[in-house]
């Protein structure tokens, strides 16, 4: 990272979802000066960032490397993911079903029914969006469908509610971050339940900023495993993942322009010189050697051509097959013709490959190699 104030970067990444954040980390890990621009904070408010690799061939080039990179990245950020390409775990959802994943953050990983015999699904009095009775019953059924014998019981705890406050996951999450007394209260409420079970599944409330230290403290104190279940938006575990990654990326030198959509790509003679951001007063111009588009499925409007496919090194091409700009790469859900349901695996893989490509490391993404 050069020690110079400038609006010129080695690489600009558009998009702050899993693909954008992974490519920013990959590029920064190779010493590039990175700008990450985004019109909003990805879709973390809706989910938890778990990774499925089921629709992909595990031999896909660079996949293992990319997954290892992502696990290392999240670990450094304090929200480490567990799992591997060939692993399949089932983690509980708020609807009482199981979601199949290959990787999940440590605070959800233990939800797999094979990992425990006795599970308590713990609701919080007044928290309307989490029905522990309903979830426990359904999980028991689904676990037995999966051939697992884990028993699920529903429990409810009462937590103090501040005057005027309505119990909500956002409020509990903030309190977990800010109030040691709240963490102790939660521990004390869960303690009697913990002595009878191996796993406590509770709504995602364990802080928007907390890391391994703060969450593992609770597990240690209770002497049993914990699995958070993300609730209706805002999903506290998802926001936590974003917040932790943002803090980490800032530390390794990534410059964030969050909240400012790209107005225009500055493409001239087959090269992208930079972007114009929609900023107050006048568009802010930032320039770079490389641009990585990781803007998701819904915002493909930036490129001069409405729909596109891409080369093996992930450069978008127009309808005639010509590369739109030789220094634009695309990552994540913006890539069409990819299995859209390869939940986040494509994002990690292509984000990583693009970030490395920006650094001149020729990792290749082989098209059509999905299983």
């Amino acid at each position: 990272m050069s020690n110079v104030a400038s609006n010129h970067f080695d690489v600009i990444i558009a998009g702050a979802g899993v693909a954008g954040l992974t490519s920013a980390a990959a590029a920064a890990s190779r010493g590039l000066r990175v700008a990450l621009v985004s019109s909003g904070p990805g879709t973390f408010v809706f989910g938890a960032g778990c990774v499925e690799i089921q629709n992909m061939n595990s031999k896909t080039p660079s996949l293992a490397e990319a997954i290892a990179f992502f696990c290392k990245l999240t670990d450094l950020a304090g929200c480490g993911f567990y799992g591997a390409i060939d692993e399949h775990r089932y983690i509980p959802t708020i609807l009482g079903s199981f979601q199949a994943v290959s990787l999940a953050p440590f605070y959800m990983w233990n939800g797999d029914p094979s990992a425990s015999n006795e599970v308590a699904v713990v609701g919080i009095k007044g928290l309307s969006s989490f029905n522990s009775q309903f979830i426990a019953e359904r999980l028991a059924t689904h676990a037995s469908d999966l051939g697992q014998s884990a028993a699920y019981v529903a429990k409810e705890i009462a937590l103090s509610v501040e005057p005027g406050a309505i119990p909500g996951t956002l409020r509990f999450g903030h309190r977990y971050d800010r109030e040691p007394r709240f963490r102790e209260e939660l521990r004390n409420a869960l303690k009697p339940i913990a002595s009878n079970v191996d796993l406590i599944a509770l709504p995602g409330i364990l802080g928007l900023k907390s890391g391994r230290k703060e969450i593992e403290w609770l597990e240690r104190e209770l002497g049993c495993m914990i699995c958070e279940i993300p609730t209706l938006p805002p999903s506290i575990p998802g926001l936590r993942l974003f917040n932790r990654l943002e803090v980490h990326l800032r530390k390794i030198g990534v410059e964030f322009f969050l909240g400012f959509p790209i107005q225009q790509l500055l493409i001239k003679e087959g090269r992208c010189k930079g972007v114009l951001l929609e900023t107050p007063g006048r568009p802010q111009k930032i320039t770079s050697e490389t641009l990585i588009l990781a803007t998701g499925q819904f915002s493909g409007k930036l490129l001069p051509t409405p729909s596109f496919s891409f080369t093996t090194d992930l450069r978008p091409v127009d309808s005639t097959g010509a590369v739109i700009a030789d220094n634009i790469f695309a990552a994540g859900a913006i890539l069409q013709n990819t299995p859209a349901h390869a939940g986040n695996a494509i994002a990690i893989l292509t984000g990583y490959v693009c970030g490395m490509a920006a650094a001149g490391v020729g990792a290749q993404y082989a098209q059509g190699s999905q299983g």
Partner: protein
Amino acid sequence: MRKDRKDEVSLDNCLKCTDCNTACPVVTAHPAYPGPKRLGPELERMRREGIECDTEWVEYCLGCHRCDLACPNQVNVSELIARAKAAHKKTPVRRLRDFWLARPGLLGKLNTIVPEVTNFSLGLKPVRKLMSMFMKITPERKFPAYTKPDLRTPNVVAMNKGERVVFFPGCFIQYNQPELGRRVLELLELNGFQPEVASTGCCGVPSLANGNSEEAYKRATANVNSMMEAVNSGARIVTACSSCGHMLKTGFAHLLEDDPDLATKAAKIAANTYDLAELLVAQQDAGKFNTRFAPATATLKLAYHAPCHQKSQGIGRPWYHLLRQVPGVEIEDLNAGCCGMSGTFGFKEEKYPVSMEVGGELFAAISATAPQAVVTECATCQMQIEHGTGFKAVHPAIVLLNAYATDAKQYSFTADTSGKPKDDNMPSCA
């Protein structure tokens, strides 16, 4: 009252995703605060239907714009809350107090007639007690000291001819920190500019924040008219206060959009307004930034706090990067959220606890970093940081100017690192 705005923010853009609530500092600090989703788009819908929906909570919006930046769908949440604020009915005591808080320019003029008397009176316990009783202004904080407003355009003869720029000082520099203003001018000269001081008044941010859009409209109109000559002649406008900068870049255009002539002028002002550090980075990218720094004599450990109205300008972190180039400076970006002061908000008795609770995360980050000084470009962030932590807080321009090998008076960073709250709230620039 002005008629409804034409360029409507589409309320349908609000998908109720709650991203705005997760970014709101007041939601973090106050358990009962309904949050920007409710106070912005939801109340706006009701107001349009003519449904009675006034609530005192709108007064608690800090105007930090973090909700706007968090919205993935570009809903202008804080603008909608500002409308709710403007429609809000206040109690008579608050109306009187907020009348004055909305007019720092007028206060500045009155208080600097004999600044010594003002400062003496504002420091008296009985006076503060009366202000608390009758004006609901918290006695917990000290008022910033007023100084004779003597900031003038430097003598042109003594300067190199450079690009003409017009410095918009704003109230705090005008009436409390004219010395900082002189340092800004010096910094501009050292970097090849020919600066002059704009004859402008308050930018209008405090008026908007206190729900007084008529007053803000007046301020915007006066400021726009007084800067048009300079902008038309090709001069750029420079701000050193992030809130003034934010207002010049966005607020004027919003306020004046119903008058085609003024709207055109406001857009032109906005397009030509630069934050001081933004301008210096542009100068660096053009190869014209002055890097003739004096060699480091000691390490200066600093912590940088980005004010909300700096973040909302979308210019990155120019001060943080500029100061990293200074020999001997070690600077850490605190990245610990909003300070909670929000200009006049933190002075209001009923809002003081919220203000301090919001700042809690920042205070903790500063104490953990234990810098020799905190740097931040917003004067009220500086006040809050010193009040909440006891650490010295200064404008980054002072650090940069200090770094040059000039005859300029050196600022001494005699920081109080005890971490205990301290009485002296003023970063004296002498």
